């Protein structure tokens, strides 16, 4: 419950504050957000499976974000930033879908 509140408060704060995204972070933010979403879905599925562990969640969340940002950074340096970030988004999207399917089975039993 506190976690859901945290998410809601974060969205509201982001909409209200509307901070200027620093130029350094700007290319990595969207990918980082998608990676974090993937971690959140994974955590939700783990919780429904009854195997949720906060340490694992924190580590997977942070490592997802960092690795996603790193891949984009590396892609930019190699000159294939657009393609690589597309690839990252596709992979994360597949994971999010599979996690969402598991969640769906738990919640709707279908």
């Amino acid at each position, binding site marked *: 419950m*506190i976690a859901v509140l945290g998410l809601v408060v*974060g969205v509201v704060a*982001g909409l209200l504050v509307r901070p200027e995204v620093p130029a350094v972070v700007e290319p990595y933010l969207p990918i980082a957000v998608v990676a974090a*979403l993937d971690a959140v879905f994974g955590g939700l599925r783990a919780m429904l499976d*009854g195997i949720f562990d906060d340490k694992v969640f924190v580590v997977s969340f942070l490592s997802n974000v960092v690795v996603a940002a790193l891949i984009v950074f590396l892609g*930019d340096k190699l000159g294939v930033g657009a393609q690589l970030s597309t690839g990252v988004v596709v992979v994360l999207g597949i994971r999010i879908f599979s996690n969402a399917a598991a969640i769906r089975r*738990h919640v709707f039993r279908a």
Partner: protein
Amino acid sequence: MSDDDKSDSKNGSKSDGRNDPGEARLRAELPEEVPAAASEAVDGRTADVAAGEVPGPSLTGRQRLVKGLWPPRVTRAQLIVALLLFGLGFGLAVQVASTSDSDGALRGARQEDLVRILDELDDRTQRLEDEKQGLEDQRTELENSSDQAEEARKQTVEKERQLGILAGTVAAQGPGITLTIEDTKGTVEADMLLDAIQELRAAGAEAIQVNGVRVVAGTYLADEDGGGVSVDGNKIDAPYRFKVIGKPQDLEPALNIPGGVVQTLEKEQATATVERADKIVVDALRAAKQPDYARSSSR
């Protein structure tokens, strides 16, 4: 990806190991990317558990979700997850807000895309500049040519007027003299008038008219029966009034020289008077005649 799943699986084997080792083994053996099978296994397990009437630890996913949501428990795990989710929500909202800005299309673009867009804009600017330059050149050319056409037209008009004065098709005015020949005895003949006209022309007369008849290059004079003279077929009677445009200082002496026109006329009992005037108006006109055969050979 696989790392995350593995850690989840390990976690699962750890937590579920105490209750159901077989389930943990099953989960560990399952392929990672087949959530359907896994969840079916879980569902099957849940059904078994429900059939076995074991309450508490093995809840369904839905019950776990409800339990997690309510009542709210302030634990370290909840707080850390809340912090992370706060960060996620914040980033999400910021990204959505910055993408939906008016300049979002450029803000979200990558560096190479921006460079490409810039190049395209430069190319387009270059093309438009070239086009503008071409159009301006064209305009300048047209202006010049229309200026030239206007100048040519002015010159043509000017020339037409000059030629019109010579041809007698337009009126003329300017300084000059009037020559009046009184012929009380009827002794003046056409050749005398012709002599006067020749003398005037030789002295630089530019436009001449006699009693309302314009004298031009093709003018002829003839004696008429019963006195009088015809000029170009128009009969005129004494006194003969010449209106002459030219330089008065040249025309008057030319008539008055000894043995000249005036003396010759006086010898014939006619009187000739010459008067200078600052403004002589030669307004007798002659119709412009289109030549039947002669054509301009210029051009």
